[in-house]
């Protein structure tokens, strides 16, 4: 068996953030077939969804960081995928978030997970900047970015596609 090793696990009050594993593929691919995926590169058919899930895992291998699957403690059901994203051709490194199902919304899950990832980016990954690229029209994601304290930066370069750039302020030392 070929396994990914060396990936961290982040823990918040309610959530566990761990690297994607093969058993998450089904949920990930099912999400990407839905209209909910329209703001994050979807919808994608089974083949493209499978390819993209491989890319999510391979991102960890390429960069040493990547997107985490978010679960509750003691329940490995994937709620969403939140974390660090940087195809090496993008202008800046991103913290991004996706909840797989509408039933997980409104509970602060994405906020709680993204807060941990922003902290991890500053303090462990030692990033110089953090942005979130948000597709036009994704109002829920804009609201979350603002709740996280990010500010829209219209002078920042887009990531090769049309998107708002929300910049996360570096916390005072």
């Amino acid at each position, binding site marked *: 068996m*070929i396994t990914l090793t060396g990936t961290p696990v982040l823990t918040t009050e309610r959530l566990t953030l761990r690297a994607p594993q093969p058993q998450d593929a089904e949920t990930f691919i099912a999400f990407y077939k839905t209209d909910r995926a329209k703001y994050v590169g979807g919808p994608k058919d089974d083949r493209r969804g499978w390819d993209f899930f491989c890319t999510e895992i391979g991102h960890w291998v390429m960069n040493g960081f990547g997107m985490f699957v978010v679960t509750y403690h003691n329940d490995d059901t994937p709620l969403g995928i939140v974390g660090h994203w940087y195809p090496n*051709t993008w202008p800046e490194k991103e913290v991004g978030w996706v909840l797989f199902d509408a039933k997980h919304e409104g509970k602060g899950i994405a906020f709680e997970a993204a807060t941990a990832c922003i902290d991890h980016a500053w303090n462990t990954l030692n990033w110089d900047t953090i942005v979130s690229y948000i597709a036009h029209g994704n109002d829920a994601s804009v609201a979350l970015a603002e709740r996280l304290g990010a500010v829209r930066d219209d002078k920042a370069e887009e990531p090769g596609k049309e998107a708002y750039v929300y910049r996360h302020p570096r916390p005072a030392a």
Partner: protein
Amino acid sequence: MTVTFSAPTLETERLILRAPELSDFDALAAFYASPRSSFVGGPQSRELSWRALALEAGHWVLRGFGRWTLIEKTTNTPVGIVGLWHPEGFPERELGWDLFDGATGKGYATEAAIAARDYAYDTLGWTTLTSLIAIDNEGSRRVAERMGATYDSDFTHERHGPMQLWRHPGLEGRA
């Protein structure tokens, strides 16, 4: 902490076959920018090439096998990607080979593909293997012929267009 996955490394007379890694990116992006990539879904942008490279690594974790980057021993540079491939939408597990510009005409694809096929049969215990070849990719078809593979059937790939499925000899009769 270094993130790794435990892909095996193979060695042939002139090549090292190792897991894909970030340092392969420029070579892979150059390949995907060239017309030669038209047989395998290219040409495509650097960002899509990066995603393709990450996909190569993720394929290993999801399937337990994958493709290797070929390192030319004399130059220590990546010259291609060869190995075992079974993404969603492929009819069967296949043995694929892509050589980067400047690496053709040296027998590298055949040399690496034989090592990959031996690994599939002798280590993974597989008993059959196919190769999907774009209909007008004569260079790739010659590699299949040299390895003793024969035409099996037609297959239309959603992205790569009309292809031929070639079947390799089994445990007995391999080149």
